[in-house]
């Protein structure tokens, strides 16, 4: 890893996963700037966003951005934390187009709102679905389902 992220941004925590990737925890307001920095600064050159994922850890959604550099064969994970009671974060579609459906999926399954997303609607579930199934407190109360009949 031949770049210095901490001189430009406030890194809350960093750790190395067992599978080898380094993970940087940044503030959620910085996310677009961090990804733009990592994409455009020549020493970093992270030109591929392989995946965006989300997990609910207690009262926070942890959104991870898996970046890959095809030149340096380097990979890094940027992690941001979004509170469950106010799930809003800026969209990174302008930086990486592959984030488009990823963010829609996270919106669909977790209910995280991505501000400035060009087409934020449900993707895997039907549009009339209620609730967000991957939240830990999700209960399927859809009255149309047989097992939810009164």
């Amino acid at each position: 890893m031949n770049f210095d992220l901490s001189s430009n941004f406030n890194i809350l925590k960093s750790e190395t996963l067992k599978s080898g990737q380094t993970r940087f925890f940044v503030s959620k307001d910085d996310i677009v700037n961090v990804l733009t920095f990592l994409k455009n600064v020549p020493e970093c050159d992270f030109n591929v966003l392989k995946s965006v994922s989300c997990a609910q850890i207690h009262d926070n959604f942890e959104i991870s951005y898996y970046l890959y550099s095809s030149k340096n064969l380097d990979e890094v994970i940027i992690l941001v934390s979004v509170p469950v009671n106010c799930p809003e974060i800026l969209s990174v579609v302008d930086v990486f187009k592959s984030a488009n459906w990823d963010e829609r999926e996270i919106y669909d399954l977790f209910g995280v709102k991505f501000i400035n997303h060009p087409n934020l609607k449900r993707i895997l579930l039907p549009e009339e679905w209620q609730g967000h199934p991957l939240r830990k407190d999700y209960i399927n109360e859809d009255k149309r389902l047989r097992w939810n009949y009164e």
Partner: protein
Amino acid sequence: MNKTLKNTFQLNIGPQHPSTHGVLRCIEELDGERIKSLDFVVGYLHRGMEKMAENMTCLQYLPVVDRVDYLSGFFCSQAYLSAIETSLNFELPKKAQYIRVLTMELNRISSHLLWLASFLMDLGATSPYFYCFRERESILDIFENITGARMMYNYYTFGGVKSDISAEILDKIAEFLDEFPSHVKEYENIITNNPIFLDRTKEIGVISLKQAQNFGLTGVNLRASGSKADLRKDKPYLIYSELDFDVPFSIYGDAYTRYQMRIREMLESRKIALQCIEWLRKNISDDKVNLNINSKTVKIDEGLTIGSVEAPRGEIMCWLWGNGTNTPERVKWRTPSFYALQVLPEIMKGKMYSDLMSAFGSLDVIMPEVDR
């Protein structure tokens, strides 16, 4: 009155359509025969794989994993198990690693064969279908001998594979691999220089390297556009670093190139499989194929681990959050088709409607993998 005639119209394909490789709905805005915009409706095959994982132990989830992508079940198992095995620091027995690589490479050949058959079927050629299925059948028979199942194998287990491969099965695989190049020649004779095929695939669905990287394409789709990225070389897992093979790549990025890359990749897979067979024959007396772990008691350590694998369609990643119990806190699947499908509206803008299906087919998108 300022009313002009609207000269575009909407056309709907699917959800039930033979060339959508599953259940996919495309909504197109057409101007004559040119595509003005394209929109996909996915999710018809959503089975809630990620939600299921939260309510099961990791052993119960193991057979489900094969269904993420039912044409390359071994790869999904490998991605899932490699996440668990890395998390628990399991060192696989050498023989188990060779068996895994052998089965995965055979699986890659069978998956590419099915792609070839259905791609040519989309373009209106029926005979390659029968040629490809003839060879695919032999591979599925081999899998049936090894694992007892033809598509949903459930053969890998925590710390290895469930059973050993006998010498007879190795002979059978070797026999198949010996005659496989002559079969590939047969396909090439009917397809590669066929003028109709050339017309329908050359310079159709061109993806530039920049586009491919921006949209997160992986696997053959990326390598056809000029990248050499292949996890088996860049970040070798199992015993890939000890094997001798090439990664075919090209720069043109059209449907025809993707076809060529897949044909060449099948032959490379054959090369890998032959090396595995050679090793397995030498070590036939070694019978340690797993770590004899009681799968019921496997507990995943706290924290995130990622298992990634180079599958036929690209990179499958399994993100696994453990919480110290035998049930994962969360599992996330990163599947290559999800990204390959996204690129299509971009590359088909302004192109002919009749080219849509050859571009779509060449990307090797499979819907269960998109919807999970």
